């Protein structure tokens, strides 16, 4: 049984909660966050449902490490490689932050595919969640483009020639391909503008678009709710009485996965 709080304790609690209440009264944000964190989800969700949050976490890691790397990186052909070397070798913990960004990029892409596979295999893309699947596909495309534009930035032989090949693969698209590749290069040849252009796309345009789409993605997740796994009894209507066992399972009555007789 809870002990009655002393008057002083109550006073202290009121004082501590005062700023939170102040914000809540004026914005409703605390209630909003509480609604987001403590909303109802189906009882039979499992660990696979955490892949989306894992992807979001990987993106946030990319966001934070990327912003910090931008403090030391210099996007000009003469300085880019040297500034990366400086980050890796000289700046305190630079090797760690660059490594997190470099390997985190792969994590982000892999997690996007795992998350996508979960949604596909659980049938969670079906009505009414089709729009969220489409937004997810856009996020996947933008994420891959992030990978492509970020790969050039170290400005070493691997990144340069990989980008040459990548741009020229775009150039082989029918009709518009030659124009797409000129647009990516910022001209008919790879030059000083190409690096700065890729940097701007990598750290401003694409993250902005991705953040906006993630906001939409989460809004739809909250609005439509989390879907149950395909084997969910709750979603299938657990209120129905279990059929009586009269014969071998799977022949005259449905087995655990449906069976032939319906």
């Amino acid at each position, binding site marked *: 049984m809870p002990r009655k709080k002393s008057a002083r304790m109550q006073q202290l609690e009121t004082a501590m909660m005062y700023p939170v209440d102040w914000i809540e009264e004026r914005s409703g944000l605390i209630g909003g966050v509480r609604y987001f964190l403590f909303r109802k989800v189906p009882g039979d969700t499992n660990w696979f449902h955490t892949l989306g949050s894992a992807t979001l976490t990987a993106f946030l890691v990319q966001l934070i490490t990327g912003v910090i790397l931008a403090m030391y990186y210099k996007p000009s*052909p*003469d300085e880019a490689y040297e500034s990366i070397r400086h980050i890796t070798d000289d700046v305190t913990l630079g090797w760690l932050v660059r490594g997190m960004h470099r390997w985190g990029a792969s994590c982000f892409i892999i997690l996007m595919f795992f998350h996508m596979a979960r949604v596909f295999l659980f049938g969670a893309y079906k009505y009414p969640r089709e729009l969220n699947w489409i937004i997810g596909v856009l996020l996947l495309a933008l994420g891959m483009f992030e990978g492509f534009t970020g790969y050039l930035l170290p400005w070493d032989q691997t990144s340069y*020639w990989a980008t*040459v*090949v990548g*741009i*020229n*693969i775009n*150039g*082989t698209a*029918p*009709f518009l*391909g*030659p*124009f797409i*590749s*000129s*647009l990516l*290069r*910022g*001209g*008919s*040849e*790879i*030059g*000083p*503008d190409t*690096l700065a252009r890729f940097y701007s796309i990598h750290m401003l345009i694409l993250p902005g678009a991705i953040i906006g789409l993630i906001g939409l993605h989460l809004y739809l997740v909250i609005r439509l709710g989390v879907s149950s796994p395909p084997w969910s009894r709750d979603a299938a209507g657990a209120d129905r009485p279990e059929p009586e066992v009269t014969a071998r399972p799977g022949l005259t009555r449905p087995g655990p996965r449906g069976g032939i007789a319906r």
Partner: protein
Amino acid sequence: MGFAVGIVCILVGLIVSWPAVAVGAAITLIFGFLWVRDVTHGYRTVPEPPPADAAAPAEPAPAIPAHKGPAAMPEPEPGEVASYPRSKFLEGATLGLGAVIGGIVTVPAVGFAVVPAFLDQGDDDIDLGPISNFAEGQWLIAHFELDPADGGVSRRTAYIRYNGLLENQPSFTIVSNRCAHLGCPVQPGGLVQTDKTKDAKTSGGQDIQLIPILGLSSFTCPCHGGSYDDEGNRTAGPPVRALDRYSYSIRNGRLFLGGAFSVGRVEGKGANARISKYNLAGPGQHVDGPEQWFYPMQPPH
């Protein structure tokens, strides 16, 4: 929709040709007019007068307390609100002005990001030094910078062979090292004699290195294994055409490198080679055969 098509046509026309701009401007004007007419339809037409009995109450009623009886303003008739011109005008004005302001800000910004990629792409001819540096039948690697102001990032490589005189004019074969598959640098199949490198100080202020190759028989690409013979014809691997070549000119006994062009196939050898020449296309793009119809237009090079 048509308005957007017109804007697109203008932007594309700025890159491609002036007649396209004119067509785009015409489409934009026509659809812009139709759009404005459509949007303003609501308040250009005279709204129907409200029914007479609603406008004039039958007789003045005795005063009643404010919290009783009907509201001070009568409920609007169903049709009245929908055709109310001022709210419609304000709604249209807000959206329209917003669109205009957005367009004024966006169009130059997008133009700034996009158009420079398609304008002024030509580079000056590059001085490769006196033609006495080039012995007949000798392949040389030439490293040069397309635009010395851009520095090392514009460094390119060509393979050059002097073919002797053809009709009293010096003939050169100048092959680009850009693979016709996806643009990696093709490597010469021969002995690269770095120790016999010649330096040619040129009029452009560039320090151009000429490295002889002994017994060149082929070019091979390190990325995906595209192979070419010594005229640049594809012999194996994924490339879709022969290696690109550079045009050249000779001024005051010096070799000048001009613009590059694409090659479908080369028949014959050396000075007597017959080259099927096309406008410069990007790597991986077909210039001949039925697939050439996939690449009908090229941006300026």
